């Protein structure tokens, strides 16, 4: 299965090579979408993860035992359909085309799987319809 994984680090996590373990031990194909960690290892990491579901479950358990808060997420953004006017300006910010306009009815479509969580769309949206659901 392919999914996104968010890791939230508390202050007191051991200096464990987490990404290495996830790849080596759990055979996960990992793409780091976003990393925001300071020198005390506080912060968060977002992975795009591809692997079998058993290994992903094992990885989540491993992270939990380390004291890292780990969750599977499908998306880092939420679009409020009451606020969105389908102007389409957010598509200018979306290099991976997760946000795209349906060229038939010109409504805004969002493909979660393509989203890499860059969140550039959030500040681009003129009606502030897009919010961050993760942190």
């Amino acid at each position, binding site marked *: 299965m392919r999914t996104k994984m968010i890791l939230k680090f508390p202050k007191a996590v051991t200096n464990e090579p987490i990404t290495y373990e996830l790849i080596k031990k759990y055979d996960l194909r990992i793409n780091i979408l976003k990393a925001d960690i300071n020198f005390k290892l506080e912060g968060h990491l977002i992975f795009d993860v591809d692997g079998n579901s058993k290994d992903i479950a094992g990885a989540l358990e491993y992270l939990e035992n380390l004291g890292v808060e780990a969750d599977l997420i499908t998306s880092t953004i939420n679009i409020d359909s009451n*606020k969105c*006017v*389908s*102007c*389409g*300006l*957010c*598509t*200018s*910010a979306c*290099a991976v*085309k997760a946000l*795209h*306009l349906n*060229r038939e*009815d*010109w*409504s805004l479509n969002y493909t979660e799987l393509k989203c890499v969580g860059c969140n550039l769309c959030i*500040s*681009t949206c*003129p*009606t*502030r319809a897009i919010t961050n659901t993760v942190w």
Partner: protein
Amino acid sequence: MKTYSEINEKIKAGKAVVVTAEEVVEIVKKIGKKKAAEQIDVVTTATFGPMCSSGAFLNFGHASPAIRMESITLNGVPASGGLAAVDTYIGATEESKEEGYEYGGAHVICDLIAGKTIKLKATGKGTDCYPRKEVERELTLEDLNEAYIYNPRNCYQNYAAACNMSNRTLYTYMGPLLPNLSTVTYSTSGTLSPLLNDPYYKTIGVGTKIFLAGAEGFVAWRGTQFNSGAQRDENGIPLGTGGTLALIGDMKQMDPNFIAPAVYEKYGTSLFVGVGIPIPILNEEMIDHVSVGNDQIYTNILDYSVSDGPKPVVKRVSYAELQSGSVEINNKVVRTAPLASLKKAREIANILKDKIEKGEFTITEPVQFFDTTSITKPMKKED
């Protein structure tokens, strides 16, 4: 040849043939211009785009004792104190003193239309006729005597698209423009756009009744920066900006679905305004104009990294190309993104079509027509 009154008779009888400015392009391809001009009575046009040159006149009624409001805020957003005692004009781009451009005049206007309570704070120096020096009230739209949108400029006939050739992101009214020619943004409803369907202002003029954000509004005047003398192509479409319209309409009749505040990152507040304008098909010439499709409407892509003087033209493209999602510039495929909502514009064109078909909305002959010779001047140079 049809007259306004003949068309209105048909509308009132529920027999008028009404199509949108998108539909008419296909109809003319099928049945030809002559038949189309005979059969079609009205073509509906629409746009739903951000327009900074927007705002509203409001009258609050007199407090007791009365005040001459000289310094005014609405939900913390300054409004003009330069009118009579309890009149004001709130501009869409005015920013909140506390929240900056995340809450501006456009938000106040839309909150009022949505029925929300807003807070008025005002002070005055106190006069013999207006002794009070300050007032604070929580108000809704219903509490106001008059509240009407006045757009000094809307419905740009044509507008250039924007790109950024520099190596840093530019924050503009055309949205954030990513560096190194990564995106092109454009603002139009294309073939649905009102003044692209009546390029010489033969039916749209002062007094034309329109759909304005759900209300029945009117064309009040020519819009500011009315550049009707612009160079035009063989279809009469200005190569550059062209004409504009000043619009007026009652906020108390407006629908929050067709007006919305807009925020452009590190630029400021603006206002999406939904406009629908009917074009009576008086003769075959009008069919010529309304049948122009997106593949025949062209605009320039300008480089916004040049901020002083005229922005260089990077490429001339059709709206069909812009709407396809990408354009090729210097052998690079660049994605395109709109600022105006075509989805909303279509909705408005169809609502107006429906209203005319049902006999609820008639057409009006302008009481004064616009010229085709005006040129917008730059600001006078320093002496």
